[in-house]
């Protein structure tokens, strides 16, 4: 038996014991899954999007199944930053895992306000900047689909926090390389790719959308090839690391992202079916590395060969 491979990675200055995180919006604020999985065995956890004030989210129906994934329009329901900090940060601080807080705002200024508030909150390792949620009429995606606006919001947040900044980009933009460069030039320390893909399911009997919001965000296996392509294109355009996500449910899925150039991955929708997915992904990556005689997971990152 060969030596266990080195699984550690460093993303945006955060050292993680392995490159597998839980994706924002699929793992709550931490305690929800704590009975079922060992959070300490994860590279990190990205909590659900936090706004300055409590936010109600959308009217149900908020979720529906599709042939190869889920369509959701939760609408970023969250308790607001103060309640999150007082109720959930003590729990998260007790764990030996990277804590990334996903934040958003309804205005540029609000993005800055939330970022600044987390600056001196102990136990927060980085901020993931949601500029790509498809389920919000004001804010969210409108900040992430125009390069100028994206540059403005990232630069503004950069000035308000010393924490590592990880913008989460939209898969709907025409040229992802351009957006990745904009993020890098505006002060991002890493990039998360991809957010859910805007999509729709219709109830033909009622001739109405299944989701009350009409449109939702598609996640799961259906979007994985889209995500892999975007990660590959973005990785070639920038020097900052990329956290790849979109339909990962096993080690081989995660390896596609790593080989394409992601330095870490996040597991999302698959956790709902099998809460242990992320931990299984960790061990399946290890098995792959051993089989290929690779000493470190870093030896596989960005190794895609294109003829």
């Amino acid at each position: 038996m060969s030596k266990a491979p080195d699984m550690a990675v460093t993303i945006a200055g955060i050292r993680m014991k392995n490159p597998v995180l839980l994706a924002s919006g699929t793992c709550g604020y931490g305690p929800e899954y704590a009975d079922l999985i060992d959070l300490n065995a994860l590279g990190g956890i990205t909590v659900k999007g936090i706004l300055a004030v409590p936010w109600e989210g959308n009217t149900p129906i908020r979720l529906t199944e599709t042939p190869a994934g889920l369509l959701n329009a939760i609408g970023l329901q969250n308790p607001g930053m103060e309640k999150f900090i007082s109720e959930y940060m003590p729990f998260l601080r007790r764990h030996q895992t990277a804590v990334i807080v996903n934040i958003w705002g309804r205005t540029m200024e609000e993005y800055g306000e939330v970022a600044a508030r987390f600056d001196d909150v102990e136990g927060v390792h980085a901020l993931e900047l949601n500029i790509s949620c498809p389920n919000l009429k004001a804010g969210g995606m409108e900040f992430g689909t125009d390069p100028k606006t994206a540059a403005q919001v990232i630069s503004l947040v950069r000035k308000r926090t010393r924490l590592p900044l990880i913008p989460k980009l939209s898969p709907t933009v025409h040229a992802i390389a351009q957006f990745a460069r904009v993020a890098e030039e505006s002060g991002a320390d890493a990039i998360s790719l991809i957010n859910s893909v805007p999509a729709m399911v219709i109830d033909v009997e009622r001739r109405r959308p299944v989701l009350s919001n009409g449109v939702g965000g598609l996640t799961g296996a259906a979007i994985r090839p889209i995500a892999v392509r975007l990660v590959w294109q973005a990785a070639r355009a920038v020097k900052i690391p990329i956290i790849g996500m979109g339909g990962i449910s096993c080690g081989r899925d995660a390896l596609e992202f790593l080989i394409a150039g992601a330095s870490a991955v996040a597991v999302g929708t698959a956790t709902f079916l099998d809460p242990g997915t992320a931990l299984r992904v960790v061990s399946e990556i290890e098995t792959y590395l051993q089989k290929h005689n690779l000493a470190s997971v870093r030896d596989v990152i960005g190794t895609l060969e294109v003829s």
Partner: protein
Amino acid sequence: MRLIEEATVLEHVAFGGGYRRIVFRAPNISRAAAPGQFVHVRIPQLSREALRRPFSIYRADGDELHVMYKPVGRGTHVMEHAHRGDVYSLIGPLGHGFSAEDRDTLPVCVAGGYGVAPLSFLAKRMRRKGVVFIGARAAPDILCTDDFASVGWDVHVATEDGSLGERGLITDALDRWIATRPAGPTPEIFACGPEGLMRALTLRAEKHGWQAWLSLDRPMGCGIGACLSCVQRLRGPDGKEYWARCCTEGPVFAARELVWEHA
């Protein structure tokens, strides 16, 4: 404490009306289960991309956990082919159920169709004997009457086609009982069934000033409170409205907190 357990199918039987009962060997979840709680079931034959399916717990006896269902959707149509010895992943017991504690009230259970399953579990766990109203479309849809009779409950049945019990809606039978009931302890309602019935019971509980506990069903994602899909509008004691999760704060809610019409 939420548990995840690999549960073996011990028994899977059809009992008329298209209804089925599946018995799992799930010693840890079964011993922790309370009436009104549910299990989130991974159906192994279903696609890798499908969600788990939530099922009310019908009975929890020692190692055995019973679930009652009717094949109505993609998941349950696949589950219909479950065999003895198959292994299912269960997460549970989940949610906030009914209280079986002793109180000075008269328990009145009201069930629509196979919504009777968690109420049967409740009656088994209650020391008090109460009254149960079971309604459905036709005789084959009336289930579990013996479960209540065998523990000394007063059983009322109504079917829409009159093929069993009183003809009409179960709320009609309930209203007749309310109008003619002898003096005694204040009724307390425990109910599970279609949303129309839950709304009708909310009105009655409000009118008479009774406490009512209603189990709601919403499209569910994670089942453990992370995804915020299965929300129901509630009004808290301070009058403020908010979204509560059926999987965590529910599925059983106090009727007086429910907000049915939300703009």
